[in-house]
């Protein structure tokens, strides 16, 4: 709908040019990207599972309590790789595969913190750390609120 409206505002000359331009556009390899994202994202999850099992069998964690240290470990690794300048190269190949898991969230915060370090700790790092992650939190919290409301109203309360 948005695109259609946009096209209507174009002059015939602009429309003709966009047809010419479209012929030369290098398309995103969407299918290949999806497969890579699926495999690499899946591998990250398998790795997370391995960490969870490690915590469960080596230490005194249950399946439920092992969740927190597992996430912390993944975040630590993602932040470390971001700091070493490797994560973004990996992400160029993996795409959504590295963006969707918790590692992507960690990367978005760490990269913004590194980027704005030269502007100081308070206004630079502190003020910009949530530049990318902020919208995830806003819409995540809002979505959680709506779901909680629906559950309360309909009387479904999961256990």
């Amino acid at each position, binding site marked *: 709908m948005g695109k259609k409206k946009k096209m209507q505002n174009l002059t015939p*000359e602009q429309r003709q*040019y966009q047809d010419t331009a479209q012929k*030369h556009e290098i398309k*995103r390899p969407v299918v290949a990207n999806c497969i890579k994202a699926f495999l690499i994202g899946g591998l990250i999850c398998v790795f997370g599972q391995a960490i969870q099992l490690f915590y469960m069998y080596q230490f005194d964690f249950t399946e439920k309590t092992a969740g927190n240290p597992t996430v912390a470990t993944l975040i630590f690794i993602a932040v470390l790789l971001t700091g070493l*300048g490797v994560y*973004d190269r990996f992400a160029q190949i*993996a795409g959504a595969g590295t963006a969707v898991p918790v590692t*992507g969230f960690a990367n978005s915060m760490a990269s913004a913190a590194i980027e704005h370090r*030269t502007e100081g700790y308070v206004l630079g790092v502190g003020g910009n750390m949530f530049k990318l992650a902020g919208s995830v939190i806003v819409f995540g919290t809002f979505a959680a609120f709506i779901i909680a409301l629906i559950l309360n109203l309909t009387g479904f309360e999961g256990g």
Partner: protein
Amino acid sequence: MISGQRTWTFQNRPVILSAGTAVGPFEGEGLLADDYDVIHEDLWCSQDSYEKAQKKLFEDAANQALDKVSKKPEDVQFIFAGDLSNQITSSSFACRTLCIPYFGLFGACSTSMEGLALAAFITNCRGADLIMTGAVSHNCVVEKTFRYPTEYGAQKPPSSQWTVTGAGMALLAQKGDGPVVTSATIGKVIDMGLSDPYNMGAAMAPAAVDTITAHLNERGVEPDFYDLIITGDLGKIGRNIALDLFREQGTEIDPEKFKDCGLLIYNDDQPVFAGASGAGCSATVLYGHLLRRINNGELNRILVVATGALLSPLTYQQKESIPCIAHAVAIESGGGAES
């Protein structure tokens, strides 16, 4: 002086006395490594921020241009320069060090030729004896200004381009040895309604074609008058579109003589997607590579058309399309025939 509506011809033939270039490590691994004066091994250029690194590149290139002809900053009357960071601070800060009367320019990636055209105009009408002009860009500064943090894992599409870390500066004089600037055509702002900031080549191609066509008409020459017509940073996509547009309007242009600076800098193994871009792209290629080829006698007459996308992150987020511009400057070898 003015031919047609927007072309200047310079009868007094201002001379490019010398030029200096400074680039980052990634460019140093590219195809034109031998043509640069300074190659920094460190992306930070021994500074503590990328903005300072960009300023350092500017200063290095300026000092190289001065040193080659044993001039001092105080010998230079004016400087026309710019970059892509907010409020073009790197250029202004570098000029604080150089202490040369300064005109700050913003023409996005077309700044290099905007500066050269103005510098040539002023030199031609004897408004100065010695003028410096140039442009600088730094990959990480541009990423920060226009896109995501450098270490953020966003997947770039194949149509995106890689911003050059580099600066190119030139010294123009009324007399001396070196290539001469013979004419310049100033571009109009052209917007074909494209709004994808990851496909700048396609947005900028019509501006390049418009300026080149105007230049050829107003000077009354055919494309083969030039040994090389070289655009700034159209990349693979933009160059192909430009060739298509020339074909459609019936301008015969030899693809062998129609190149793009953005496709010359890096080798095929470097992951730069559709090509290089940035204010430093045309500046380093012209002032490093092309001037050397003119001085060697490999090229006699070239037309450099620097292309710029005049968007900001704000206009992009407000769903505005991308207005573009291109400025063309003709350069000939000093000993070449008068035209």
